[in-house]
């Protein structure tokens, strides 16, 4: 991993200058250092993937870039100019849009109201909401994401997780000018909708946006990513371009590398015979659920919840 970190300079030497650059940025909450010496470069037309386990500092990083928190060390530059965002509104005004893990949707509000929340379109001398126009745009944008909601007056809380994710992403892309941050956009999605979301990431990239894709799924990251940063305990442990990395390497780094080998050895020591060689398929996982079994019923119930 140390070789990968040193090769960062090589990547930085590319001719296209980064649109957003974090240089040695740190964030302390009292005596807790949530983030230390993090350097990330985001270029237009590139997908920068930030990977890390829970508590690695991914959320803190997003919060700094999107203006929810200020940073305590280092420097952040946007288009070469140093910047500090006092509020999410300021970050948005500078062209940084964020799709949060919790989606930032108000559950009791309708689809179109959520879509335009904070960016409402008004018309006329009395600044009336242009509801027809907002509904039309909302419909078009969602349609492009591949989802059609017939009644845009429906409260968002009644939609499935996937549909809500699509609304949040479509909204951020519609309003996001230069940089879009996606906080684990595929974490709550099904296989097909993950594919849709990943395709949309590519669309955003091709449209010339700088995309920051936060995830802990190396497969998803490797599908769309141009540049990979792995965080661990608030520090950057890997920073590499796609050319310098294979999926296996990324997965191993993400899974903890050396730690995983040690863990494997430890587990094997405790329960000999039960530990799993890497690559070996566990027979139990392939078990088909017998119709009528309790497990099957439970799975179906959850399935129904999803559809409701």
């Amino acid at each position: 991993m140390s070789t990968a970190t040193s090769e960062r300079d090589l990547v930085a030497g590319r001719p296209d200058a980064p649109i957003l650059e974090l240089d040695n940025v740190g964030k302390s909450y009292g005596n807790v250092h949530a983030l230390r010496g993090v350097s990330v470069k985001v270029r237009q037309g590139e997908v920068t993937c930030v990977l890390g386990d829970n508590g690695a500092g991914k959320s803190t990083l997003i919060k700094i870039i999107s203006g929810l928190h200020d940073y305590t060390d280092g420097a952040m530059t946007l288009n070469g100019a140093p910047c500090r965002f006092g509020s999410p509104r300021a970050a948005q005004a500078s062209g940084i849009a964020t799709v949060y893990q919790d989606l930032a949707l108000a559950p009791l509000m309708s689809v179109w109201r959520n879509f335009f929340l904070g960016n409402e379109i008004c018309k006329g001398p009395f600044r009336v909401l242009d509801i027809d126009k907002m509904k039309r745009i909302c419909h078009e944008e969602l349609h492009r994401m591949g989802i059609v909601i017939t009644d845009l007056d429906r409260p968002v809380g009644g939609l499935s997780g996937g549909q809500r994710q699509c609304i949040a992403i479509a909204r951020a892309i519609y309003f996001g000018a230069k940089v879009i941050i996606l906080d684990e956009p595929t974490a709550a999605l099904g296989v097909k909708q993950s594919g849709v979301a990943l395709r949309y990431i590519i669309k955003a990239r091709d449209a010339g946006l700088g995309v920051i894709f936060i995830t802990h799924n190396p497969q998803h990251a490797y599908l769309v990513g141009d540049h990979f940063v792995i965080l661990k305990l608030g520090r950057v442990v890997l920073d590499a371009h796609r050319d310098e990395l294979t999926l296996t390497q990324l997965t191993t780094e993400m899974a903890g590398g050396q730690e995983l080998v040690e863990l494997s050895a430890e587990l094997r020591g405790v329960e000999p015979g039960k530990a799993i060689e890497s690559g070996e398929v566990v027979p139990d996982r392939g078990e088909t659920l017998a119709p009528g079994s309790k497990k099957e019923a439970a799975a179906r119930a959850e399935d129904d919840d999803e559809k409701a």
Partner: protein
Amino acid sequence: MTVTATEPTSAGAAGDDRVAARALAPRLLSRPEVGSLIGAIVIFLLFMAVAEPFRNVANVGTILYGASTIGIMAVPVALLMIGGEFDLSTGVAVTTSGLSASLFAWNFGLNVWVGIILALAISLAIGAFNGWLLLKTGLPSFLVTLGTLFILQGVNLGVTRLLTGNVASSDITDMDGFASAQKIFGSEVTLGPVNLKVTVLYWFLLTVIAAYVLLRTRMGNWIFAVGGDAAAARAVGVPVRATKVALFMAAGFCAWLSGMHLLFQFNTVQSGEGVGKEFIFIIAAVIGGCLLTGGYGSVVGASIGALIFGMTQLGINYAGWNPDWFKAFLGLMLLLATIVNMYVKKKADLR
């Protein structure tokens, strides 16, 4: 969340056939005002049947007047509840407003209008203080405004006794500006057989303006959002703090309007008045469909809630029942309306 993988069709661009467009009836039934509207109709029919004077058209003015004194405050209280906050100090804030205008003008021998302007400033300041303290401390608005309620109640009594030696403000009928102010805050117009107090006009106006702001402007969108999910609202750039403080100040403004009516209707203000009114405003808003948790509700509903109060208050009188039962009736109405709201909404959402 592995189960999400089995969600198959919704990504199809052709349309999601699982979600059909909703029919008109359930869509209307899922509106927040429905419970209060049903309640108002039931109450109306009940008193039409049992109370003879209730059928007299001339009494419409009296009933609407009773409703308007509650409605003027129920409207901002409903907005505040949709915005996710409570204000328990609204009842005594009305008294504070009336007292400050009266005492100030009387003690300094000034034109009544100077007192009125000062009272407006004080009322807005009380609202702003509630909002500011709430956001500064992060305490629930229930506690903050409960504190304000008692502070104002004490100050009302204390200051009035200090300045007048009495528990009521002095009569200001003969002071400069009283006549013109009374025209604005306490006059009456006659429409055929019906005498309408000016407060009824203010109440309708406030309802229309507030409903318009809530449903047709950006500010209204923000009010729903800060009540529904303040963190989400902030994340997309909604000025959460400013919105909440503005809502508290709107309550302050309406308290001023009510206070001025109180003063110019009765010429003096009793300093102990107003305690307990705050719950009536909140009940009207809740009957009108506002959720205690915020993010949902209706201004029109709150006004219908106020109308239910007006009808009940006088209906009990007209029917010749003992008015002691009024409160019990209110509590019952509150429970019934909220249960109907919940039931109807669930039914409508399922369809």
